[in-house]
């Protein structure tokens, strides 16, 4: 079932105009962010980087093997639905609907989405979703943050990006078997020109790799250089920005975060080293230097749109987090280090050990709930783990190379 907010219709299949899926969608498609024949990603988002930084075993279970809990944790499913509602409101406004009609359509969507929320958490229910959406739109009716517009005039909300970051040299894989000049010549029943030879090598790189300069003169001694390029992948950083806003004469990226706890300075300090926020800022920095960009100037940082969810109220607070070009530089260095020092050796050696105990207990509450969802699996002897994963989890591909 789908909901088309612009026409206020419920549809059995998506129409050409903007519509929102109302049923859970679990992707079982192959993860195209992983280089075929390997367990190495060529495209990372903040989720995969956070997993990679936290615990290699969790990264393997969740990202490489694609296991996720049968029921999404309430904060994730609630947050996803709130994002969808806010995106819908902005799209309604951008399509010419007035504020009041847009609020009504968004409230209807919140009711529809709220019905699929599981009542495991009293502060993340259908009622808190509908209430938070309507209260938010009231709270920020005359929003000082003005949504930026894309060059085509559409609002800069829910923006997907994928940016090349660095080249990584990898060895031959199943997809890219060892290659020698003799192999190529033996395969062919004709004598290729130097140009054809380069094209043959280049043609093997359907998936990745930097282009060999077209003017390169081919000589036998250049073959090693061609091979180096053949076995290089360009590692990308991808993601999904909630909204780009103008605040005064500055530009910020915003992100919504909900919490059951008070929105204090302690709460916001929890995001100090957030890979997600530093990543968004870095991506925005890079995009601001590209032509036809939504960023008229380099971004000043990230504004966290905080929502405190009570059973009978929702409280709002905004926190600007300022970053500097050095933040972006450090993020890119850390990104490269994580891939070179953790992802690539782990993929090459096929080793995914569990890591610090603090990762297992991250977000673990005093009542024993929370923490890493794979703790139960990890505690079992290695031969029993796969069966437990199949029994207690569902497969769902998290593919950073696909825009949402």
């Amino acid at each position, binding site marked *: 079932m789908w909901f088309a907010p612009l026409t206020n219709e419920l549809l059995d299949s998506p129409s050409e105009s903007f519509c929102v899926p109302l049923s859970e969608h679990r992707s079982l498609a192959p993860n195209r962010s992983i280089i075929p024949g390997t367990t190495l990603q060529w495209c990372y988002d903040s989720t995969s980087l956070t997993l990679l930084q936290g615990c290699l075993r969790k990264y393997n279970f969740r990202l490489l093997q694609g296991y996720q809990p049968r029921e999404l944790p309430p904060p994730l499913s609630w947050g996803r639905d709130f994002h969808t509602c806010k995106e819908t409101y902005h799209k309604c406004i951008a399509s010419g609907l007035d504020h009041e009609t847009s609020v*009504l359509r968004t409230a209807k969507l919140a*009711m*529809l989405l*709220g019905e699929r929320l599981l009542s495991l958490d009293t502060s993340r229910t259908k*009622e808190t979703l*509908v209430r938070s959406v*309507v*209260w938010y739109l009231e709270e920020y009716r005359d929003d000082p943050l003005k949504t930026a517009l894309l060059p085509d005039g559409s609002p800069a909300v829910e923006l997907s990006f994928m940016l090349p970051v660095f080249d990584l040299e990898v060895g031959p894989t199943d997809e890219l078997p060892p290659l020698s000049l003799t192999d190529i010549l033996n395969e062919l029943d004709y004598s290729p020109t130097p140009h054809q030879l380069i094209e043959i090598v280049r043609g093997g790189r359907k998936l990745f790799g930097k282009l060999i300069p077209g003017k390169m003169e081919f000589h036998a001694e250049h073959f090693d250089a061609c091979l180096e390029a053949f076995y290089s992948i360009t590692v990308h950083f991808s993601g999904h920005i909630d909204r780009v806003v103008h605040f005064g004469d500055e530009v910020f990226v915003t992100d919504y975060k909900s919490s059951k706890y008070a929105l204090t300075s302690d709460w916001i300090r929890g995001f100090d080293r957030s890979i997600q926020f530093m990543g968004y800022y870095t991506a925005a920095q890079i995009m601001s230097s590209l032509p036809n960009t939504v960023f008229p100037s380099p971004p000043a940082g990230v504004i966290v749109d905080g929502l405190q969810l009570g059973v*009978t109220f929702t409280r709002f607070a905004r926190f600007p987090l300022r970053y500097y070009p050095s933040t972006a530089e450090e993020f890119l260095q850390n990104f490269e280090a994580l891939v070179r020092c953790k992802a690539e050796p782990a993929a090459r050696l096929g080793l995914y050990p569990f890591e610090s105990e603090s990762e297992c207990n991250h977000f673990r509450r005093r009542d024993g709930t929370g923490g890493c969802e794979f703790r139960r699996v990890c505690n079992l002897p290695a031969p029993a783990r796969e069966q437990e994963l199949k029994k207690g989890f569902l497969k769902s591909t998290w593919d950073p190379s696909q825009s949402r």
Partner: protein
Amino acid sequence: MTSFSNLLAQTTQAPPTDAPQTLADTLRKHAKDLTDEDLTMLVAGLREQRTRWNAAQASGSRERVTSKKIPVKPAQVSLSGFAIKKPTI
């Protein structure tokens, strides 16, 4: 002395049919069954709840403004300004 059967009768008594509808009742409705009027009432009820909660916060009260405390009523349609057009002969 109240007997058990009396208590049972009280607790199982159907609510009076003219009981005012609350925001909680509207929120419980299935989204697919919502009419445009229901939606308008829902949004108006949530705004009322927010106003009351803000007022309670401003006065330092710790009152819980639950959705059960917010009555919702159908939007009043104002007929002022409407008139039957006199047929022209």
